[in-house]
Each structure stands twice: as structure tokens, then as C-alpha cells.
């Protein structure tokens, strides 16, 4: 056991010293691994966060009932009475056009572009509106209620607030599938790159491998350092990917915080996403290991074959 451990430690030490001797080229390989891991992970993080946001929105069951612009106060109270009688409605409240207009002006105060545009409008373009919370959360029941509300005279439009969120969610789930394909393609690229790098290293150590074989080295003895090399490329590449992602998330959060504010949201990407980071590093190491395993197995077979044919 201690012998085995000793061999593993020696192999790691050997690989690290070889990497130190070729610092620049080792760094380049790690960088390639890092960038390739970073791309799909960032894409995933973005989409994952967006879909969490839309999931949250979809659970809301609010229907907005916009009245015709010229709706009189009589019409409003008639509709009010109708809504009060409807058993499918949990609660509702009215926001008059004046109240809405005031809210808009207040909210846009902090942003010059929007407040300029609002001021240019001159008169209030907003309708009176009821915001209705339905009793049921079933999509069918909601649809039924919406259709019913739509037919009330004086109502311009009955809208689910979350309709756009549903469309976005569909798009996002499509994008998730896309990420899967992109990630798989990049994994193949990494397999080839790491495999090829390890193959080149094996070629430079061909003599050593040949002699080691002749004096009784087992295949695993020969293979171990190269497997560690592949795995370490994955580890360092994965760490680089995590660093790059953290940097990009930080930059992104800085700009997104301004937009989020306008939407009354505190939406931002988490800087420390342990599961994603561990997955990135873990899969990079696994890819490195597999890539070098194939390379070293093929190379050893050809070296042993050479040795026999002479």
C-alpha cells in the first residue's frame, strides 16, 4: 500500500517537474482547457439564472384587466361589482389611470432618458386597470377566467402578466439542450487536444519507456505519470476556467445591477456557485484522464510492437 502510494506521489512529482520545465507550453494547454470549459459553463449559468427568474414569475397567477381609455367611473364600478361576485377571483385591486401615471413619473425620476420620454408625452396615456389574483393556479382555469373577463363590456384587454415569461421559459429550455450539444462538442475537442499533448510527451520519452519495459516495468507504472499529466492539465485548466468565470460574473453583475433596479429586481448572478465550479473542474479532470488514457494506451502498444520487431 505504501509502495503504491509512493509510486503515485513520485509520478505526480515527476509530472509537476516536467510541467515546470515547460512552463509556457503547459500554461497554454491549461488555457485552452480553461477557455473551452468556460464557454459552455457561462452560457449555462446565464440561462440557469434566467430560467429561475421565469419559473418564479410563472407561479404568479395575476391577470391584468385593462379598461378602455374612455371608461367612465360608472363602467368601473359596474366591473368592480362583477369582479366581486366572481368566485374564481381570490382578490383584486384597482389602479386608476391617475395613480398609474403618478407611479410611472415617480419611478422614472432617477433615470433621465425615461423621465424625459415620460415628460414629452404630456398627457396621461395609461388606462384604468384591475389587477386580479385568481383562486386557481391551473392554466386551464386561468385561461377560462381570462376569456370570461375579456367579454365584459368596457374591457379593452385581459392579459396574463406572465405570458412573455412562458415564452422565454420555452426558449430557455431549448437553449439548455443547445448547451448540452456545445458542451459535448467541446469535450470532444478537449479529449483530442489533451490526448495529442500527452502523445507528444510520450514520444519525447520513448527511450525511457522502452528501457523501462525491458527491465520489468508494468504497464501501469509507465501509464501512471501520463494519466496524472492529463488529469493535472484538466485540474489547472478547470481552475483557470473558474477564475475567468468569476471575473466575468463580477463584471456582468456590475452592469446588470443598474438594469435590475429599474425592474424592481435584485437579479444578479451568484459569484460563488460551488456546484457549477466543482462540475467544471471535475469534468475537466475526467476529460484529461480519459484523453491521456487513450493516448498512452495506443502509444504503449506501438512502442512494445516496435521493441518486438527489432
Amino acid at each position, binding site marked *: 500500500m505504501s509502495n503504491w502510494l509512493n509510486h503515485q506521489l513520485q509520478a505526480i512529482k515527476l509530472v509537476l517537474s516536467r510541467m515546470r520545465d515547460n512552463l509556457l507550453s503547459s500554461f497554454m494547454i491549461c488555457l485552452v482547457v480553461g477557455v473551452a470549459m468556460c464557454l459552455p459553463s457561462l452560457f449555462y449559468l446565464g440561462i440557469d439564472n434566467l430560467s429561475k427568474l421565469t419559473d418564479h414569475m410563472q407561479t404568479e397567477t395575476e391577470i391584468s384587466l385593462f379598461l378602455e381609455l374612455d371608461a367612465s367611473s360608472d363602467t368601473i364600478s359596474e366591473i368592480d361589482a362583477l369582479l366581486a361576485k366572481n368566485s374564481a377571483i381570490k382578490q383584486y385591486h384597482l389602479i386608476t389611470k391617475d395613480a398609474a401615471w403618478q407611479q410611472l413619473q415617480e419611478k422614472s425620476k432617477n433615470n433621465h432618458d425615461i423621465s424625459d420620454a415620460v415628460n414629452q408625452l404630456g398627457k396621461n396615456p395609461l388606462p384604468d386597470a384591475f389587477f386580479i389574483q385568481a383562486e386557481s393556479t391551473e392554466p386551464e382555469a386561468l385561461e377560462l377566467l381570462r376569456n370570461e373577463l375579456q367579454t365584459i363590456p368596457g374591457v379593452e384587454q385581459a392579459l396574463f402578466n406572465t405570458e412573455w415569461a412562458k415564452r422565454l421559459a420555452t426558449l430557455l429550455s431549448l437553449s439548455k439542450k443547445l448547451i448540452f450539444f456545445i458542451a459535448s462538442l467541446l469535450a470532444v475537442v478537449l479529449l483530442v487536444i489533451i490526448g495529442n499533448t500527452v502523445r507528444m510527451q510520450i514520444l519525447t520519452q520513448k527511450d525511457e519507456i522502452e*528501457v523501462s519495459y525491458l527491465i520489468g516495468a508494468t504497464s501501469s507504472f509507465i501509464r501512471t505519470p501520463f494519466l496524472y499529466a492529463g488529469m493535472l492539465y484538466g485540474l489547472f485548466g478547470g481552475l483557470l476556467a473558474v477564475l475567468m468565470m468569476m471575473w466575468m460574473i463580477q463584471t456582468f453583475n456590475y452592469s446588470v445591477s443598474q438594469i435590475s433596479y429599474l425592474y424592481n429586481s435584485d437579479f444578479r448572478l451568484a459569484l460563488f456557485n460551488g456546484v457549477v465550479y466543482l462540475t467544471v473542474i471535475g469534468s475537466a479532470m475526467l476529460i484529461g484522464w480519459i484523453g491521456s488514457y487513450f493516448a498512452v494506451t495506443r502509444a504503449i502498444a506501438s512502442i512494445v510492437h516496435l521493441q518486438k520487431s527489432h
Partner: protein
Amino acid sequence: MIQFDQVTKRYPGSDEVLKNISFSVNAGEFVFVTGHSGAGKSTLLKLIAATERPTSGTVLVANQNVSQLKASAIPFLRRRFGLIFQDHKLLYDRNCFENVILPLRINGVSGNEAAKRVRAALDKVGLLHKEKAMPITLSGGEQQRLAIARAVVSRPSILIADEPTGNLDASYTADIMAIFYAFNQVGVTVIMATHDALGMSTTQNRVLHLNQGKLVPSTPSHADLSALNQTELSIEKFA
């Protein structure tokens, strides 16, 4: 120790390199394998070291049937041998010490114990003062002695040498032969292939003479006997 029973070896696309060979080598013997180049000497050694398998017949090494050995068991069989090649097969990217320590690494020996054994092996071949030197800076004879140090560092019970003096001039050859005799005297079995007369330097040693893949009885010539005296002188020098 080593037993060949009706061994035939044929490489793909060639005639039989060895034909129906039977012999045995006891522990502690010093055996020469002689013959012209192409007579099958190297193949015979490769069959012992399990780098080749016989086409037919059985090769027994330490009571293990080499041809029936699993591929995974072969490395462990090879660790019983010290192998010495005509072209040394040294690693030129590292110094003498690092070259000699390689078999110990493979055997899982490390640390002070390994360093001690490497220095002992270098001392036996007279290269202790060159442990930091790179092999390329050594003379041909010194390189071959370094290769011997690497072969004996893991204390194998059998030394197999394929024309170890093939590229060396007479004085180096005597040095190298003396080292082999010294190991043989402490009980190591030595099997050495050679095509030159100096190899068959003594009537005490058994000679397996190969001619076109067959074992033939051989008689040492006068030239060989005169070479014997020369070699024995150098043994005293080294012992």
C-alpha cells in the same frame, strides 16, 4: 534455473531463426552463447528474457513456463534479470545516478535505501566518482559499465548480456569481462552472447555455439585460450 526444451522460433515472414534447441543452465553458471551474426544469439536471449515467445517448445525460467505466462506477469519475471545490451540503451537526458536508479524505481525502492544501492552498484563498476556525469560524456567502455551497474542494481540472480563488448576495443573488453566474472563468483548466473574470440575465453565455461539456428558442439581455439590469461589478470585487478 533456465531450461529450453525443443524450442523453435520463427519470426513472421522469415525462416526458423532457432531450430529445435534444448539445453539447460544451472544457477551460478557462466554460459557463453556464440555464433556468427544472424545465428540466433539475440533471439535466444530474448526468449530467456521473455521479450519474445517461442513458436514451439517450452522455455522454463525459475520453473515458470515463459510461453504460458500472462502478459501481466512478464514484468515481474523480467525483474529477476539484469539485461545488458550491445547499444547500452542508456537514457541520455539524465545523469549516471538517475540512469542506475531506474530499476529501483520500478521495483518500488526509494529514498536512502535506493541511493545506497545505486552508489554500491556504481562502485562495483568503478564509476562512483562519475555519478553526476551525463552518460554522453563517458567513453564507450564507461557507458557499458554504467549499463552493467543499472543491470545489477536491483540484485538480479541472472545477468543476460547481448554482445556487451561488441563495440569496444581489447582493453575495455577485458575490464568488462572482469566485472562479469566478479559477479559470477558471488553466485550470479551469467549468460552472455558474443561473436568474438575473447568471449569464449575459458574452457571452464560452457559454450552454447549456434550455427544457423542450431546448437552445435564447439571446441575452444588456441586464440581463445590465450585470451583467457589476459582476462584472468584483469579479474585480479577488479576483485
